[in-house]
């Protein structure tokens, strides 16, 4: 196991008041402990930093990695909304009913189904959307050699943002209530839209690694 060379910095970090008298047994024990702690911290930070850089490299760069993070967050939010839909729960953590912010009013309204059809719950559609996004925004997804996959990602996110605008319209003009968890999904979809459109515009619809 590689260890970082010990420097004099660790000793300098202790204040004079806290430091035991130099030359004493306690003092050398204290300095040794501090050096070890400093070495361990430096080693852990270096490992974490290189792991983080490797992760971003594997994901195909910062932008691609960001799309994966946003997709996973959206997947979690959409999964919670889907669970709430099918469990017919009447309470949402941190989104109690009664005023303009009212998750229950939104998720039990006819607008919680696609175009009020009572066939496809919007939460299920959101879950499917983010599951697809997590797959295509994974390191493997970004490296897929088929252009169709990269077109599908772009088309899906454009469709997603269009649906988000429709749902915001429904919340503002039909239900007169806002659901915080739905708003979370809307914001994440918007961020995903901005990231994917930016990448498509600047790097084209190509797998990562081919765009230099």
């Amino acid at each position, binding site marked *: 196991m590689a260890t970082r060379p010990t420097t004099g910095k660790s000793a300098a970090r202790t204040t004079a008041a806290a430091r035991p008298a130099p030359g004493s047994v306690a003092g050398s024990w204290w300095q040794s402990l501090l050096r070890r702690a400093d070495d361990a911290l430096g080693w852990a930070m270096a490992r974490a930093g290189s792991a983080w850089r490797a992760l971003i490299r594997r994901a195909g760069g910062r932008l691609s990695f960001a799309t994966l993070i946003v997709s996973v967050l959206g997947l979690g939010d959409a999964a919670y909304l889907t669970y709430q839909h099918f469990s*017919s729960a*009447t309470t949402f953590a941190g989104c*109690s009913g009664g005023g303009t912010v009212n998750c229950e*009013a939104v998720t039990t309204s006819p607008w919680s189904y696609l175009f009020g059809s*009572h066939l496809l719950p919007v939460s299920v559609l959101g879950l499917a959307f983010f599951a697809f996004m997590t797959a295509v925004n994974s390191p493997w997804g970004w490296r897929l050699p088929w252009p169709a996959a990269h077109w599908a990602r772009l088309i899906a996110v454009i469709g997603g*943002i269009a649906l988000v*605008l429709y749902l915001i319209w429904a919340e503002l*003009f039909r239900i007169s209530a806002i659901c915080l968890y739905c708003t979370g999904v809307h914001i994440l979809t918007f961020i995903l839209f901005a990231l994917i*459109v930016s990448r498509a515009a600047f790097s084209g619809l190509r797998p990562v690694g081919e765009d230099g």
Partner: protein
Amino acid sequence: MGKAERNRARTARNRIAAHQAAAARAEQRRRILIVTGSIGLVLVIFVALLITRALIKPGQQLGGGPISAAVARQITHVPASTLASVGIGSLPAANLPIKPISGRTLTSGGKPEMLYIGAEYCPFCAATRWSMAVALSRFGTFGPLQGIHSSAKDLYPNTPTLTFYRQRYSSPYLAFTPVENLDVQKKLLQVLTKSQNNLWVTYGTSQGSHGYPFVDFGNKAAIYGPLYSPQVLHGLTWAQVANKLKNPTDPVARAVDGEANYITASICKMTGNKPSSVCAAAPITAIESRL
């Protein structure tokens, strides 16, 4: 190659390089325009929605009035076959704000008492009243019905409904005690008695608060919230709602009649399954067994 020739070649190379740089800059501008344009378009639509919503004034409060005899008859005479066909309709089979309770039997005039606490402004009460009217009609007779609309400034504004303020009702099986606590403007309309308030707090409390609507079925069962969304009634008139109640496939009937069956089953629990012509009917026994 002479000096002049070399200069010409260098100039040509410089011109080509300048052209390429200009083309690259133009391409970069085009890409930036695509990105900012598409993100900007989404933001502009979003801001336009917010501004439009802020500029829209709350809808004018729609008024009330007597329900015509023909419309009242449609509300109070929903065919038993329709109710049987609807079953629980669009309502879920579980996790509804309805529960069995076991307090001292609530009675009035020697009959089991059904206590309703609601408010005229409340859109969820508006939805519940339709179902109560359909269900109670199976056990007794209503006096003239009065139509109102829920508050124009609340959720599901101007939901068409009935009011039970001073509503007359007679039944050989139960006593119906409606209390419309607040009017459409949220002003006090009817004061609760201390015992009514105690029942509301005891059996109507959910997640730390008690709200409208609350229905106590003789302390045998209680409804402590909305069973379906008032959205299904949006934009309809009293006559349109009444007319839809007999069609078992209509979304209005599936919501209103579905809740009416839940209420009927709760009343049967309270009356000891009297009358059997109602309480032994197809969906009621099944729903009652689940309560």
